[in-house]
């Protein structure tokens, strides 16, 4: 055949990349390692010096540790923190698992909508939500007063350890929900069908098959929730400290801000201890998990999920979940909104008589305006950069033969376990030690952006990795066989296919970076304020109204971005939130 012979003329060799793939891979790996692990070395160093690092003549000492361990308040703070974390974990996991089972394995009315709305507390700005809780459920809050004065029944106080655990549990419950939901979706429902056929009643199936199957998911989410609740800062600062309850994080924050000599070593020592605990918990969690099992696998055949019938319990249970969402999510948001429109927060006078625009007008100037602008810039730029870096790192980790690729997933997930304040203190010292570059970071919003980004790298990774894992490896092998190098194959084949996940990661990162605050409290300077840090400092100074208005800005932006994001692309990949 004429055409055939023509078709087999020799072709020129494929062009080689200008930049060798291995250089790009080394750079990515080096950048991720430096950024994630970099801040901890200065932290360790600072905890072992007798004076702040910027002062000359410091010598090695264990004095900061001795000082810290000698402080009875510190140990009391640990005891409070552990009680709080244990209570939070128990409540969040029990609730999350129950709602997950109801939404995936029963004929609960509205289960699809519930599985979406139940995630909201995790994505809403946590600091703002605490304010909302105070407005509604706090001592003298609207609902509390209503119950006390009209119904003459008490509601649990939220400024106790139990109360704070309740607030935190409603925020972290979605983590348990997502993990259990993923496990249930993954699990073959024919296992349950088999039990039904063998003669077991639905409740028996639930008890003997479904819940035991969930055990790994329960353990996994419990460890994560415990780790996250140990590190909570806003809650003890706003609710605990006024009632004389210190947590480790608030203790460190208070010592840092009130210290007679600036930047005491004992705070670095305390941060090291917290880091150690968080790292141990992460290692325990990795032990509990199969290496890959931590990820939601959406792929696979869509099997019909057999539904257990709830019969008469259908509507009462649906109503309870709706009521739960109303009380813990909608009411605090409404309370927050109200708080931003009244002169003083009091249930004694009708709110419309106290109506004012002044809090919202305050946002237009000074520190508030600065904070909003800085936060939006940080969220936008940071989300783009972090998405790009994690996409590249995920490629190196899972789509290359780079020598140290297997170390990347651990490092990418590591910040998940690290309390935000530790990242803050770590970067504070790191910037101090790195000369002109550090100064530039320290004196601009980019330092805060860096700290926020590092803290949220795991989120980007756990959103992108499952999608990457589903892109068949033969697709990029086909690219290589066709003559394209690693980078061309990645750029032309893998990354375009990863685009939906990259977009989802961008949206979630934007929201998280916008609302993040705890790493910033150690880094803010006049001019580099961000919303969360400003809310915290202004609230402590008593500017409640403007802080509520600022929190409402966060809530509104968050809700709008999530709504638009999930319309443009189905954001169900938030399933990754469980890792």
């Amino acid at each position: 055949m004429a055409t055939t012979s023509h078709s087999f003329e020799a072709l020129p060799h494929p062009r080689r990349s200008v930049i060798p793939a291995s250089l790009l891979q080394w750079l990515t790996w080096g950048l991720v390692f430096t950024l994630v692990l970099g801040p901890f070395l200065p932290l360790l160093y600072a905890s072992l010096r007798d004076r702040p690092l910027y002062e000359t003549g410091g010598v090695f000492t264990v004095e900061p540790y001795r000082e810290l361990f000698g402080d009875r308040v510190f140990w009391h703070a640990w005891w409070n923190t552990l009680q709080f974390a244990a209570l939070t974990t128990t409540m969040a996991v029990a609730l999350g698992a129950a709602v997950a089972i109801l939404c995936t394995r029963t004929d609960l009315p509205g289960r699809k909508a519930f599985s979406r709305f139940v995630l909201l507390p995790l994505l809403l700005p946590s600091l703002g939500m605490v304010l909302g809780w105070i407005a509604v459920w706090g001592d003298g809050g609207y609902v509390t007063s209503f119950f006390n004065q009209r119904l003459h029944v008490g509601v649990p106080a939220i400024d106790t350890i139990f109360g704070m655990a309740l607030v935190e549990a409603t925020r972290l419950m979605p983590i348990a929900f997502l993990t259990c939901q993923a496990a249930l979706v993954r699990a073959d429902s024919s296992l349950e069908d088999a039990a039904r056929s063998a003669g077991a009643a639905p409740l028996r199936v639930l008890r003997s098959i479904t819940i035991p199957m969930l055990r790994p998911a329960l353990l996994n989410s419990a460890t994560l929730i415990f780790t996250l609740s140990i590190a909570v800062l806003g809650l003890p600062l706003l609710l605990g400290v006024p009632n004389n309850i210190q947590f480790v994080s608030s203790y460190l924050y208070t010592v840092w801000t009130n210290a007679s000599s600036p930047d005491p070593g004992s705070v670095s020592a305390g941060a090291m201890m917290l880091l150690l605990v968080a790292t141990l918990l992460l290692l325990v969690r990795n032990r509990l998990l199969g290496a890959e099992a931590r990820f939601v696998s959406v792929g696979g055949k869509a099997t019909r999920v057999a539904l257990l019938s709830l019969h008469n319990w259908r509507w009462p249970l649906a109503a309870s979940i709706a009521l739960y969402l109303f009380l813990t999510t909608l009411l605090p948001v409404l309370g927050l909104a109200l708080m931003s429109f009244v002169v003083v927060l009091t249930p004694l006078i009708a709110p419309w008589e106290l109506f004012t625009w002044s809090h919202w007008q305050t946002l237009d100037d000074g520190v508030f305006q600065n904070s909003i602008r800085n936060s939006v810039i940080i969220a936008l730029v940071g989300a783009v950069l972090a998405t790009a870096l994690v996409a590249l790192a995920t490629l190196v980790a899972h789509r290359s033969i780079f020598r140290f690729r297997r170390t990347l997933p651990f490092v990418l997930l590591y910040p998940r376990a690290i309390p935000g304040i530790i990242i803050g203190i770590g970067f504070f010292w790191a910037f101090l030690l790195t000369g002109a570059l550090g100064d530039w970071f320290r004196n601009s919003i980019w330092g805060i952006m860096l700290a926020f980004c590092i803290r949220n790298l795991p989120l980007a990774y756990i959103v992108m990795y499952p999608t990457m894992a589903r892109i068949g490896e033969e697709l990029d092998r086909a690219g290589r066989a066709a003559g394209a190098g690693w980078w061309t194959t990645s750029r032309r084949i893998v990354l375009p296919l990863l685009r939906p996940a990259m977009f989802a990661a961008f949206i979630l990162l934007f929201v998280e970076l916008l609302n993040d605050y705890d790493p910033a409290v150690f880094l803010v300077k006049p001019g580099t304020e961000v919303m969360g840090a400003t809310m915290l400092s202004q609230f402590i100074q008593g500017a409640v109204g403007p802080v509520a208005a600022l929190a409402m800005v966060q809530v509104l932006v968050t809700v709008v971005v999530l709504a638009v994001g999930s319309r443009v692309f189905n954001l169900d990949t938030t399933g990754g939130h469980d890792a």
Partner: protein
Amino acid sequence: MPEIAVESLVKTFGEQRALDHVDFNVRDGELFTLLGPSGCGKSTTLMSIAGFQRPEEGRISVGGQIVFDAGRGIALPAEHRNLGIVFQSYAVWPHMTVAENLAFPLKVRRLKRNEIKERIAQTLELVEMEPYVKRYPHELSGGQQQRVALARALVYSPSVLLLDEPFSNLDAKLRIRARSWVKDLQHRLGLTTIFVTHDQDEALSMSDRIAVMSNGEIQQIGAPEDVYIRPANRFVAEFVGRVNLIEGVVSVVDGGKVVLDVDGGRRLTVDSIDSARVSERLTVVVRPEAMTLLAADDPLNGTNTWDVDVHATAFLGDHYEYELEAGSLRLIAQTSRPLDGSRIRVHIPGDACSVVE
């Protein structure tokens, strides 16, 4: 056109030895098949040739160029081996049209726009897919995607074509059509091809030569007829087609003929066995379709004709299959016409028997 030389490949995954000194040569223009059960190392071998696996030992050369040599630390990256490969999943890039899929390797090779267009048109004509040039993969059937994958592997004139179980995702009818179509195309292009499959029918019908693999080792290399009629060992005999294994002790060696004493006092005379010794134990293989079934009262009697019990029969469309019992021996035989009765006779032609290790 080149030949492929694979020398002494060794690859281990943890404790498991995936390749154990794999050696073979593929001749110019030949369709060479690696056949074996899953986990036998055939895909690892193919991926080593393609450059996606790196064995610990051995050498691979394609057309005289060494692409891999463990001893000298040579491992040419996959993209510089200039091989065409069709994957089991086809791996047609879902975000590109058919034309874009085919254009990718050409763009990487910096061809001019009109050359790219021309080559795409020619290659699509070759696989009879010209009307689908603007389609996306999800708009194509499995068979069409496979043709696109093949076209993409051919469009840049690779020196060698590698096919990794390309038919396993097609339904049974389409698979048989695709076989002859691919074979015909390969023959027309005269393209040296390595084909990996676990399906013996595919291997037998398409290959010039077959290498049967098991546990990371090559068991036998030969033309389809060789492998089928004269299997080198028990594994090959059992894997390639259905087979009867008859064990016996040599009682007479007479020129080209050997007489075996089989269990239950039966005797089997086998043609042409080299170097058999009296009282040696041998295993003989006979294909079910080589045996002749006779009625119990059939006048034909004598050498290699045994009385047997019918254990079970099955109708398989174009033939009947009989499970027979001769004492403790179980035999399978095929016949085109059914026989009555629970006791019949079977005749085993002496020239249909071959000895395996």
